[in-house]
């Protein structure tokens, strides 16, 4: 095979997803749905926005109020590329399990799909973190050339963080949900058999030991690999540079966000002292009692609003930011793997050429070298498409993250505004005349 044509690996970015037949499309094609680029059927590509319920009623995804609760839970994103979706996964409903040996949390994983790879259209299973970890390892093993989304941190120091606190569990749940959604959105990973098993099997037959061994083997081979790379193609070098600089920026943003939270907390501490002074003063006054108490309650409202803002930022903003750093680390590992695959190929090619000279009978290129070559090409192609996908997701994720931050702040100011506006008539009460002099 020449270098140009990829094998029938679904990940090749050659064919856009739109051209793949959607099960709900007007033209129902063969039930076997393969992501093979050879399927040239035209489809009516239904974009996320024009999704309709099984009974045909169109759904307005932009206003949650009118969506069905089902779609609400599945959190449809604003999808720029109009990718069709036939697999929806959600992680929720954390529950604590107490046994004699240990205590742990399980999460409900709900799947809704029309894919034929699944026997049923719906699944609901309970999984714990270990299971997610198993899945990720399996994905890394079986799809070594692909970027696997990261999991939230595995280890938490028992004394420092409460593993069973609401905040921790919720933060983790969100991250696990994100993980599964990213896998489900991936054109290759989502068809992985282990992913299928994870979503559908009653009990995961994990064979933990074996997986661990094989993981180590692969990682060692691809990450540390003994081959030296001659020259990295420009685009991959650029990716590496970008990741390094981006990591830096994320680190800075993390520090700034933490600093803001700290400053806001200290601001709040003062507010909690400030408000009560007005209340104390009110006790000494007659006519001014109500106005002073009004101001005191405003300050208290603002303080509460600030508390909520700080909490929202801690829970929604920081974890997502940190998780992206993990994502970047995964990406860097994939780049490194790619480098090693290329290096392996180059050195084998060199060795073969050398031997060829020796034997002086150049009949065919050794299959071993060819295999390496294929691997390089596949890897590069996979990486490129994964990179594009990653960039796109990153853009959406950060748009959502930063918009969320703006929203939280807007809500904070709106709460404070409401409090102060409501106290104005109270303050103005008993005035002989309305004075407009101070209005802006």
């Amino acid at each position, binding site marked *: 095979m020449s270098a140009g044509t990829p094998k029938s690996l679904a990940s090749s970015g050659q064919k856009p997803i739109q051209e793949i037949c959607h099960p709900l499309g007007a033209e129902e094609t063969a039930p076997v749905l393969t992501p093979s680029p050879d399927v040239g059927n035209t489809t009516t590509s239904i974009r996320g926005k024009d999704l309709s319920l099984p009974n045909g009623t169109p759904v307005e995804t932009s206003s949650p109020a009118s969506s069905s609760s089902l779609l609400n839970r599945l959190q449809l994103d604003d999808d720029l590329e109009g990718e069709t979706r036939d697999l929806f996964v959600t992680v929720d409903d954390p529950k604590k399990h107490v046994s004699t040996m240990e205590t742990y949390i399980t999460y409900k994983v709900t799947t809704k799909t029309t894919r034929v790879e699944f026997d049923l259209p719906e699944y609901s299973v309970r999984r714990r973190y270990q299971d997610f970890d198993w899945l990720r390892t399996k994905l890394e093993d079986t799809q070594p050339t692909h970027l696997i989304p990261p999991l939230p941190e595995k280890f938490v120091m028992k004394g420092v963080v409460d593993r069973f606190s609401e905040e921790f569990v919720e933060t983790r749940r969100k991250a696990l949900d994100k993980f599964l959604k990213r896998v489900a959105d991936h054109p290759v990973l989502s068809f992985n058999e282990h992913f299928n098993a994870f979503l559908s099997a009653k009990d995961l037959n994990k064979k933990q030991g074996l997986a661990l061994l094989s993981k180590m083997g692969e990682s060692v081979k691809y990450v540390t690999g003994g081959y030296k790379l001659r020259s990295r193609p420009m685009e991959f070098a650029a990716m590496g540079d970008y990741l390094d600089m981006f990591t830096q*920026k994320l680190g800075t943003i993390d520090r700034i966000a933490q600093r803001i939270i700290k*400053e806001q907390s200290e601001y709040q501490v003062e507010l909690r002292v400030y408000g009560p002074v007005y209340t104390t003063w009110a006790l000494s006054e007659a006519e001014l009692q109500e106005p002073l108490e009004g101001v005191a309650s405003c300050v208290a409202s603002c303080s509460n609003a600030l508390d909520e803002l700080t909490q929202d930022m801690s829970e929604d903003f920081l974890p997502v930011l940190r998780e992206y750093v993990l994502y970047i680390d995964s990406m860097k590992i994939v780049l490194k793997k790619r480098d090693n695959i290329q290096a392996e190929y180059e050195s084998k090619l060199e060795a073969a050429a050398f031997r060829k000279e020796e034997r002086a009978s150049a009949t065919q290129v050794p299959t071993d070298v060819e295999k390496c070559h294929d691997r390089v090409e596949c890897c590069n192609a996979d990486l490129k498409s994964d990179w594009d996908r990653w960039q796109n997701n990153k853009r959406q994720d950060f748009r959502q993250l930063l918009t969320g931050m703006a929203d939280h702040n*807007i809500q904070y100011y*709106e709460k404070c505004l409401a409090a102060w506006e409501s106290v104005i008539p109270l303050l103005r009460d008993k005035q002989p005349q309305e004075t407009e002099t101070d209005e*802006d």
Partner: protein
Amino acid sequence: MADAGNKESATIGGDEFTNTELENNKNNTMVQEGSTLLRRMEISVAEAEKRTGKNTVNMQEIFTVYLIETRSIDAITEGHNPAPDSLWRRYSEFEILRNYLLVTYPFIVVPPLPEKRAEFVWHKLSADNMDPDFVERRRVGLENFLLRVASHSVLSNDKILYHFLTEEHRWKEVVYETGFQAKADSRIKALSATFRVKNPDKRFTEMKHYSDELQSLTSQLLRVRARVADRLYGVYKVHGNYGRVFSEWSALEKEMGDGLQSAGHHMDAYAASVDDILEEEEHYADQLKEYLFYAEALRAVCRKHELTQYELEMASSDLISKKQQREELATGMVRTFSFKGMTNKLFGQETPEQREAKLSLLEEQIVQGEETVTEKTVECEEYVKGAWVDMQRFKEQKDRDLREALIGYAIMQISMCKKGIQVWTNAKECFHKM
């Protein structure tokens, strides 16, 4: 500035007069009568300037002078537009004027001056007396002082005040000629003296208690507010770092770049906005400070009552004891134990001549004492009457002013919230475009 000054005087002194109110006020000595100085004259502290000169120990110093401008209202209403008369005064001259008023009208709650040194500062605000913002706020405070004094039914008629406003030279000599300085010293002593009053006017005791509370509470409020301002400053300024990092990040990105860059600018604007917000809030702090110092003045009025009452009680008990002595001397009956009595018993009584001499001395003293008691009683009564009227006036003014201050503060907060919403909404739009 003069016009704004007028408007300010309108609300500060409560001089928002409608015709009906004017009618009511004519019968009410509490509120400003039509004859206060401010009715006849426009007053403003228009400018501040730096000067150099020699001080009392002949050393070179830099100080600030303030331009007082006055215009006759009659001249204005008659259609002329005369240039204002003006003169320059230092802060220390204002202090002298106030001390004079305190001593001359002890039963009046005399308006305070703006603070001598910047206190209750939050970190960015300069504690330097030469700082232009401080000077500006002081100028406003001095104008406020003059307007309050000039609109007071009693204080505004004072000749020294008029002199202060209209004639630059020789004012100091004139005011010192009144001899107020000596009274000022004894006043200070009296204020800090401890003495027990047997029958204080309960209203004054309560008012003194209130003045203590007002002082303590406003001072506490100012301190905490300064800390709150400091923290708020920190929160806003840190957001400026977002501006920088978004800008750097946008250089790495293709499609996301523009949105990030614009959002960064909004974050910079957000961080910068806190300076104006807090500068405006200083006005609120100034209003609180005025009443912090007012509380002191109120306390002084109460203390003066106590002193007057005490003096009356002393004079009364002195008179009683003198009368008792006279009785004893006249009747020979010793009512109370005394060493004189004992020695008389032991060593023999005095001669009739001696007794006569003593008696007539006592008679004189009793007559004097009775005069004193009458004087003191009148003094006390008049003081109580005058002080009570002014304290009522003060109470109403305080309620009005502080209510206005709270409204102003609430409006400032509303404006701050609206600005915040605006900035974050703009940023959100930029994020959306990423």
